């Protein structure tokens, strides 16, 4: 055993000391022969015979040396080094080819690794919790409608938690983040903090341990307990300079002393999983008794018992929920309609189709890259066939030649992969810092071990794929033919060109599929941007404002009137109003029923509810179709009034004029409809508007306040003067962000923009690669036909004719590819139909535009060699025959 290791080490050492060892053994063998000759002479043989006998006895000197080398060193490694050295020399000679090949490979592999990293993070990798496959998500109202329906009553949560048998643990958090926003008293000015309320057992259920300090105790989760918070890791670093002494100390949050009990670990990011695009700074325990009467407030997560499936848990919920003690309560309606899904499915299920489409797109790119490189290799192969023939003639086996070719292609793909990895690294870094993008887990996108393994796999596959085509073709030809000085015969060249044309056609077809898919997605995206939002995002901005009304509606009215009066007085402000929630941002849902109407049992009554001041509708640019806006006389003492949107009017008062009608469901009283506005896209640009109700802030208790200003100038210009005015009214106004409404709209479309951007980039890449392929083939054929073209020109063909001839040949290639590609695109478009918006999968405009684009680019790619063909000097071409 030890001897074998010693031998292996010695062999390795011998590998690096080839030359001295060779000299040594040569000297030794020479001495051997001298000794043998001397002995033969002594035996009386004549000198020539003595020499001859010595050599016969010895056997072949070169063979003996070779065997010696094989015995002492690593022949496989030596061969590899030889191949590598040879390859390096070759590639250095063909700089342009090497540069192009590595660049193309880097783009293809880089794009693939970047997309793999995204797919891996969002789709493949389990959530960053303990045993994440056992975590499940409860969707109330079967997941339909806004948060008011999909969340749970505190009682329903607690009763189900006690009664069920499927879940080891159940926990909850409050997804109405505006309730939990706060202001931290900083050393200089108040700092806005975002936070979320989580049930006491939230972290235990997910399996998250604090980085510092401890989690919440049971005492901290009951009424009257000392307030406690956990800090998120980034907030701790940013706000408290990562000072570990903060644990156990009190901080002032909303005028209240709150104890920091711990710091969460860096890899726990609440927003990344549960609220994409948001960052949570602090997490506080839910005091259940405080929210018991607040209606639907809880998002619920459960950890399944070992061995229990989601389907079993769902079956139990269906039976158990209606039989809970409180189930007869009318507010439980949506809670009883529970759908349970795996947490991972809830977080990323919606993105699966888009991500898989993206993955396919980038796979197509890789395919195009392979085809392109095979083409380049074939072009070189033609020039190198003589070299291979020569090497075969000198005794290189077929395996040895293939080995050599694979070494070369693997070396190229390795270089491309290294460069591509850098590219992927840059892309993922960029993506991970797109904090406002509404994609879950995006912040943790990185090139990790799995991505590295993926890179290696791709590099090897690509290398073998594009190296093997010419490798299988090159050796084993008729050596004599290849060695002859005339180069490839005409028929051989033609066959060669046909193969390359086929490759180019398939490349164009693949690019065509990519282009059509990207075109359809791009058109969908434009359609989404074109949607009538129901409000005017341009020249409007929102800023969160703080005020203290002590829960008194009259004081609130006075404070807000004063605030709006001052803000509208700022030069450049056209209108201002306040709402507690903005469309496309956060939402809550209540119920709305027409008084006196008879409804079937299954009738949906949910509405999105917004608490607004007079002037808000105007500031948002919403369109009042009938009736009036609120005014400051709509006080708690006067009749409760509401404004509804058209969707609510259609549902509750179909075919009637809703103005002046009475409605139930807002608070405990009847409300009179005083106005109707146009539909507003409240939760997504892509879904039709849902029923909405607007209630005066003076007749209900708002959850926070967003001041919306409409300006004559770009809103950013007025940010500081608005903030100064707010500060002058309330010194505790935190330095909140001045958000253009357009930014909220952009955030809502960010996932679609993300996919469109990537797919379009891939399509452009595919187009460039395909045009390179066309250029290569046409250029080669022009070179090959130089003499023929020369003859034709000598016989009177004009330059224009030659030019047109080459271009029409290019177009024939492109058209063949386009026809194939279009056929494939019809199929592919149907597959991505669910990703389209307002665009038919057979959209003729897109198909026609992409076909034209491809033709145009193909012409351009063909034009350069065509010009060269037209400029051939017949005399020179003919002389070269």
């Amino acid at each position, binding site marked *: 055993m030890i*001897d*074998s290791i*010693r*031998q292996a080490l*010695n*062999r390795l050492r*011998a590998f690096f000391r080839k030359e001295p060892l060779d000299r*040594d*053994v040569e*000297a*030794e*063998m020479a*001495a*051997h022969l*001298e*000794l*043998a000759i*001397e*002995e033969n002479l002594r035996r009386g043989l004549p000198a020539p015979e003595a020499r001859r006998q010595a050599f016969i*006895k*010895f*056997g*072949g*000197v070169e*063979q*003996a040396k070779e*065997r*010696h080398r*094989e*015995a*002492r060193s690593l022949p496989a490694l030596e061969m590899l080094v030889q191949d590598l050295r040879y390859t390096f020399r070759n590639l250095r000679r063909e700089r342009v080819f090497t540069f192009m090949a590595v660049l193309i490979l880097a783009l293809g592999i880089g794009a693939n690794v970047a997309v793999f990293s995204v797919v891996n993070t969002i789709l493949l990798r389990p959530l960053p919790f303990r045993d994440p496959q056992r975590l499940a998500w409860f969707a109330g109202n079967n997941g339909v409608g806004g948060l008011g329906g999909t969340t749970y009553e505190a009682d329903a949560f607690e009763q189900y938690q006690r009664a069920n048998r499927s879940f080891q643990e159940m926990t909850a958090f409050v997804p109405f983040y505006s309730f939990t926003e706060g202001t931290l008293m900083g050393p200089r000015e108040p700092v806005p903090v975002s936070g979320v309320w989580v049930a006491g057992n939230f972290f235990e259920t997910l399996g998250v341990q604090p980085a510092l300090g401890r989690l919440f105790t049971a005492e901290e989760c009951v009424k009257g307990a000392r307030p406690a918070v956990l800090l998120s890791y980034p907030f701790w670093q940013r706000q408290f300079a990562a000072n570990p002494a903060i644990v156990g100390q009190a901080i002032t949050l909303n005028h209240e002393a709150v104890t920091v009990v711990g710091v969460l670990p860096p890899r726990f990011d609440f927003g990344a999983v549960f609220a994409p695009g948001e960052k949570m700074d602090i997490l506080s325990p839910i005091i259940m008794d405080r929210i018991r009467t607040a209606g639907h407030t809880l998002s619920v997560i459960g950890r399944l018992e070992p061995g229990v499936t989601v389907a079993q848990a769902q079956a139990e919920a269906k039976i158990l929920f209606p039989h809970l003690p409180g189930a007869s309560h009318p507010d439980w309606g949506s809670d009883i309609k529970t759908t349970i899904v795996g947490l991972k499915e809830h977080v990323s299920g919606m993105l699966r189709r888009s991500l898989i489409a993206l993955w396919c797109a980038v796979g197509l790119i890789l395919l195009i890259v392979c085809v392109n490189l095979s083409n380049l290799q074939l072009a070189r192969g033609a020039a190198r066939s003589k070299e291979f023939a020569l090497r075969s003639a000198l005794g290189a086996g077929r395996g040895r030649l293939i080995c050599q070719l694979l070494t070369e292609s693997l070396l190229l793909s390795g270089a491309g992969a290294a460069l591509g990895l850098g590219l992927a690294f840059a892309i993922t870094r960029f993506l991970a810092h797109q904090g406002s993008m509404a994609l879950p887990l995006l912040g943790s996108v990185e090139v990790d071990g799995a991505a590295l393994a993926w890179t290696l796999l791709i590099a090897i596959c690509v290398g073998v794929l594009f190296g093997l085509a010419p490798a299988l073709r090159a050796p084993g030809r008729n050596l004599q033919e290849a060695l002859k000085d005339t180069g490839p015969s005409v028929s051989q060249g033609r066959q060669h060109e046909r193969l390359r044309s086929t490759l180019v056609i398939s490349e164009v077809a693949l690019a065509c599929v990519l282009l059509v898919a990207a075109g359809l997605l791009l058109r969908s995206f434009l359609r989404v941007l074109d949607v009538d939002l129901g409000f005017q995002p341009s020249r409007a901005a929102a800023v969160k404002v703080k005020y203290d009304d002590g829960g008194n509606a009259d004081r609130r009215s006075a404070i807000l009137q004063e605030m709006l009066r001052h803000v509208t007085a700022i030069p450049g402000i056209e209108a201002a109003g306040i709402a507690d929630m903005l469309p496309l941002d956060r939402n809550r849902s209540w119920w709305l029923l027409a008084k006196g109407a008879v409804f079937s049992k299954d009738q949906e009554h949910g509405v999105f509810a917004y608490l607004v001041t007079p002037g808000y509708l105007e500031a948002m640019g919403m369109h009042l179709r009938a009736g009036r806006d609120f005014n400051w006389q709509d006080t708690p003492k006067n009749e409760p009034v509401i404004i509804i949107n058209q969707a609510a009017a259609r549902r509750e008062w179909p075919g009637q004029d809703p103005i002046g009608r009475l409605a139930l469901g807002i608070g405990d009283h009847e409300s009179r409809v005083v106005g109707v506005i146009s539909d507003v896209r409240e939760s997504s640009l892509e879904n039709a508007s849902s029923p909405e109700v607007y209630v005066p802030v003076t007749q209900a208790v708002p959850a926070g306040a967003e001041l919306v200003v409409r300006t004559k100038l770009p809103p950013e210009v007025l940010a500081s003067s608005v903030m100064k005015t707010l500060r002058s009214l309330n010194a505790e106004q935190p330095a909140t962000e001045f958000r253009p409404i357009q930014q909220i709209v952009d955030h809502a479309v960010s996932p679609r923009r993300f996919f469109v951007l990537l797919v379009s980039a891939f399509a452009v890449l595919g187009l460039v690669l395909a045009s390179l392929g066309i250029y290569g083939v046409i250029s080669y054929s022009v070179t090959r036909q130089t003499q023929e073209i020369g003859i034709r020109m000598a016989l009177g063909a004009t330059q224009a004719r030659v030019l047109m001839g080459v271009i029409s040949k290019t177009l024939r290639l492109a058209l063949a590819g386009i026809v194939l590609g279009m056929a494939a695109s019809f199929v592919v478009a149907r597959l991505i139909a669910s990703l389209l918006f307002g665009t038919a999968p057979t959209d003729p405009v897109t198909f026609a535009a992409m076909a034209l684009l491809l033709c145009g680019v193909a012409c351009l790619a063909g034009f350069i060699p065509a010009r060269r063909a037209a400029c051939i000097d017949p005399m020179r071409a003919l002389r070269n025959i």
Partner: protein
Amino acid sequence: MPKDKLDLLQGTLDLMVLRTLEALGPLHGYGIARRIEQVCGDEVLLNQGTIYASLVRLQQRGWIAAEWGASDNKRRAKFYSITKRGRKQLKEDAAYWARLSAVMGRVLALEPKGGGR
């Protein structure tokens, strides 16, 4: 070459070299080859050159040592000598060969069934 010479089995040459060095002390490559030829007579097909692959293999395993020196007639030659570990290895290999050849002998000496006839 005459047809009736024996081809050397894998590894046998290594064993022959070890044994030769043990019996005769330090020798150069030519000396070892000549010695093996003399012992084997004309029964073995041996290209003297092949001995060098065997020598380097044994040397890398640490069973023999090599040193340049001067031969009887003042020629520079590389002399090989067996090491302690080489002796140990030789003992094992020789025992193995003895057993193997004994077993082979018995197997080949098997009489046909019902040999009494």
